[in-house]
């Protein structure tokens, strides 16, 4: 839809002058947009800066009014967090995140392969079934899970978290991997399936190399969601299997407020996912849209 607009007002300058001034004006608006961009980005990012600054403060300067912006940074709080038994929580998070992500991949790849190789009406229904479980509010299943886990004596058990995190991420992984399989030319899929080679061999030797980037993107998304998960961890774990988010909350409530230490713990807790997300920025959007956006 385009409309004719009135031509630019005629000025008594020569053509080249006019072009020059227009060029200059464009460069000026360009650089002012860049300035505004930087400014807005800085404002939006400032809570992160503030969090990191607070983490490097001595406790006496952390919760102060007016806020302190210049100080001698110290690693004291990070040391306190690590000495305060954070290691066990990080290990639990590492196990829950790592094992559940491997399980998700092992279950999702064959499933995505099955729904991509020859989509029929029924596979659509299966795909929508998977995604509908993602919409199931976790609060609606937490009570039976709590009661059943109690009867099976697997409360406060990393295995329970692993199973739940696998179920939580599986729908996203199936949708994502499907979008990567769909990029493989139909003839390749067809040939692979007609070959008569076993499923595992077909997947491993022919298809997997083609979807390795997709696999990495899928794993990244699963890691983000599993690492950050709080609700199940809060309700189903205690001393043995508690993960990093639970540790963070315990920092806040157990012994009064030590803001600098809490901030240091927050930085440490967020760091793995932040770095992974920075490195794999390009894959993020595809994962978050479950493969719909390339």
């Amino acid at each position, binding site marked *: *839809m*385009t*409309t004719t*607009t009135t031509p630019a007002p005629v000025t008594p300058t020569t053509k080249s002058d006019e072009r020059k001034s227009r060029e200059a004006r464009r460069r000026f608006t*360009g650089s002012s947009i860049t300035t505004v*961009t*930087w400014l*807005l*980005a800085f404002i*939006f*990012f400032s*809570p992160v800066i*503030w*969090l990191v600054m*607070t983490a490097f403060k001595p406790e006496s300067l952390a919760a102060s009014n007016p*806020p302190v912006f210049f100080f001698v940074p110290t690693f004291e709080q990070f040391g306190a967090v690590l000495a305060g038994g954070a290691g066990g929580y990080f290990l639990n998070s590492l196990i829950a995140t790592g094992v559940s992500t491997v399980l998700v991949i092992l279950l999702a790849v064959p499933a995505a392969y*099955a*729904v991509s190789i*020859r989509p029929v*009406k*029924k596979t659509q229904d*299966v795909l*929508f*079934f998977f995604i*509908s479980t*993602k*919409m*199931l*509010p976790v*609060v*609606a*299943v*937490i*009570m*039976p899970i709590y009661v*059943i886990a109690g009867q099976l004596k697997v409360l406060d058990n990393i295995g329970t978290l692993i*199973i739940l995190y*696998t179920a939580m991420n599986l*729908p996203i992984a*199936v949708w994502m991997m499907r979008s990567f399989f769909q990029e493989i030319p139909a003839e390749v899929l067809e040939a692979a*399936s007609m070959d008569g080679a076993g*499923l595992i061999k077909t997947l491993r030797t022919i298809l997997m190399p083609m979807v390795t980037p997709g696999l990495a993107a899928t794993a990244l998304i699963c890691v*983000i969601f599993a690492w950050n998960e*709080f609700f199940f961890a809060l309700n189903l774990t205690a001393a043995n299997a508690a993960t990093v*988010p639970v540790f*963070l909350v315990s920092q*806040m409530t157990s012994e009064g407020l030590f803001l600098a230490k*809490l901030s240091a713990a*927050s*930085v440490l*807790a*967020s760091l793995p*996912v932040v770095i*992974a*997300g920075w490195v794999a*920025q390009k894959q993020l*959007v595809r994962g978050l*849209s479950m493969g*719909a*956006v390339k």
Partner: protein
Amino acid sequence: MANTLVDRHNLKQHARKEPKDGDGRSKAEGWRRRGPLLPALIFTIIVTQLPFLVTIWYSLRNWNLLRPDGNQFTGLQNYVDIFMDSTFRSSAVNSIVITLGCVFLAMVLGIIFALMLDRKFRGQGVVRTMLITPFLIMPVAGATLWSISMLNPSFGLVNWVISLVGIPPVDWTASYPIVSILMALVWQWTPFTMLLVLAGLQSQPKDVLEAAQIDGAGWTKTFLWVTLPQLRRYIELGVLLGTIYVVNTFDQIYLMTAGGPGTASANLPFYIYQRAFLGFDIGQAAAMGVVVVIATIIIASFALRLIFRSFDAKD
């Protein structure tokens, strides 16, 4: 039903290559195709659907852990009770306000940020990295960051900033609990909408934009008549997926306001959690869970089909 569909499809596919290979062969073929799907399907059904069936069972029982005489079948009594419960209704309203508010504001900010990023400038990569970071911060850490470091009435950064222009300090989480929660949520989810919209902007055919420019359309006109229609399905997708994620918000409410003051800022996930784990009223909490699931599925199912169809159609 499924078998016949799959078989018919397979037969059609193989009609030329393998004529008359019989019913048994194609049935086996169908299983060979569906087999890889089964582990994921069975696992998902066991872990997500079975507990939900138990939830439905609980919702029909009068089970309160504080009343040992309870746990009998009461039919739909729990459902009647929760619809009489004004806190359930106010939590439902809060759920809607928080979800729609967060998705709308995050979308507006996301569009602005995406437009800013969709041009070449010095430090583009750095700005992009800065803008996606809030999404990567652990939500529990983000919630405590907002409720303490940013919004604390005596030493929070926000009150210091507004004091520079002479506004007296505000006790954010007590006076404006939902606004406070929205700040943390919008901050967390804007990168998500931004990335989706940015993907939409970058998929725009450049020649269309150039044509609009040559025709003399200004930036505003180009944006309204060319870019925005192009972005529509990306925005729809962002709204839908954002809603799915945000409607289940728990961390921020648990940590920032604990649903308070009173129950002023409780959403449904938080209220159900309170009824179950602090009130020990399993029956009513289960009934609320069932109602929420039914509502979510009704709202989301048709929207999902609509939107993913529009994306698949393009491929």
